[in-house]
């Protein structure tokens, strides 16, 4: 299965190489790109550096072992890795394994559809641009909701803002994101 590489995001190309060729160099590139981001991401929720590195190790090993499940038609590499990291973090916080939906079966005969993969990548780029356009306070709220293990209530306590303000800023931020992305759908 050969996917047209040049247009796809670098991370997706690496992950497909890991999946199809068990390419350790590509895995090393993925590690170099994602490990420091994952560590930063995990430490934002108040996890210490040492435990954060343990989680990074778990997540990267899961990326290697579960690469066969990665389908670039359905998710971007960063979204797929985000999901693994979140699941791992939540399992550790809750000390129990979180129920996860069934994986959709992949049709091994299906030809890779480069245009669909590309559309995903473009959408993700647009998403990143849209995130940059948010008001700093909206962006901060969305980051807290997505990255820390914070409920709206906890965000309210941490920022000293009333709960209603927290909710409306998250809603405004997400609405703005939706508007930015509308042109793509």
């Amino acid at each position: 299965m050969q996917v047209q590489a040049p247009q796809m995001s670098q991370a997706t190309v690496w992950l497909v190489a890991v999946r199809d060729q068990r390419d350790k160099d590509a895995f090393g590139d993925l590690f170099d790109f994602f490990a420091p981001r994952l560590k930063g991401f995990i430490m934002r929720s108040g996890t210490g550096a040492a435990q954060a590195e343990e989680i990074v190790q778990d997540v990267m090993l899961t990326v290697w072992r579960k690469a066969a499940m990665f389908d670039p038609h359905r998710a971007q590499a960063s979204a797929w890795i985000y999901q693994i990291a979140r699941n791992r973090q939540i399992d550790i916080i809750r000390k129990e394994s979180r129920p996860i939906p069934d994986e959709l079966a992949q049709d091994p005969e299906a030809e890779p559809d480069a245009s669909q993969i590309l559309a995903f990548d473009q959408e993700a780029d647009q998403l990143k641009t849209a995130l940059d356009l948010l008001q700093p306070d909206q962006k901060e709220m969305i980051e807290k909701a997505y990255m820390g293990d914070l409920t709206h209530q906890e965000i309210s306590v941490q920022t000293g803002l009333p709960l209603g303000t927290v909710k409306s800023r998250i809603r405004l931020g997400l609405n703005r994101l939706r508007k930015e992305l509308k042109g793509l759908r």
Partner: protein
Amino acid sequence: MAAYASGTLPHPFAMVVAAHISLCSECRAALGAYHAVGGALLEKTANIAVTNSLKSNVMAMLDTPSQPTPVYDAQGVFPGPVMEALQGRSPRWKTLGMGVKQSILSETDSGSVRLLYIPAGQAVPDHSHNGLELTLVLQGSFSDETGRFGVGDVEIGDEDLEHTPIADAGDACICLAATDAPLRFNAFMPRLLQPFFRI
């Protein structure tokens, strides 16, 4: 959905949401969109350098055979998250009377989640409507004053919901029901002698 994706949902409800997503492509897409935002945020997160040995450790572990975590596939009407709770076994039904059976999957202080089996035409017995309750239909269907619920549909109930769900004709209705209040089935056992129940 957002509460499930960010992991703040109590375990019983998380199981219902995960089972529902297994059956509903629209919600699967919504979860995918949530992950896309998460991925974009992850890519933009400020780097914090990892210690030098971490990469070599991980690279050295790639060829170590790992103890694969068991993956539970959907079986029959039961989606993967339910099979995981059942640890791959068939549900152990306990009779509640009138052909109604239940199989408790988990019961903790934060709530409980269980499977319910209701023969066609039978009313659903009262089962603790304190707090929030999510009911996902896995087989058959049931109807109540608020409408008809088929496979994949979720009914969201709270204290204010007063209804008498009745399994429709056809296959027996099998539901996954989660509540954040402790189970109170036993207290209602005498009421199972009545033909119908107001919940």
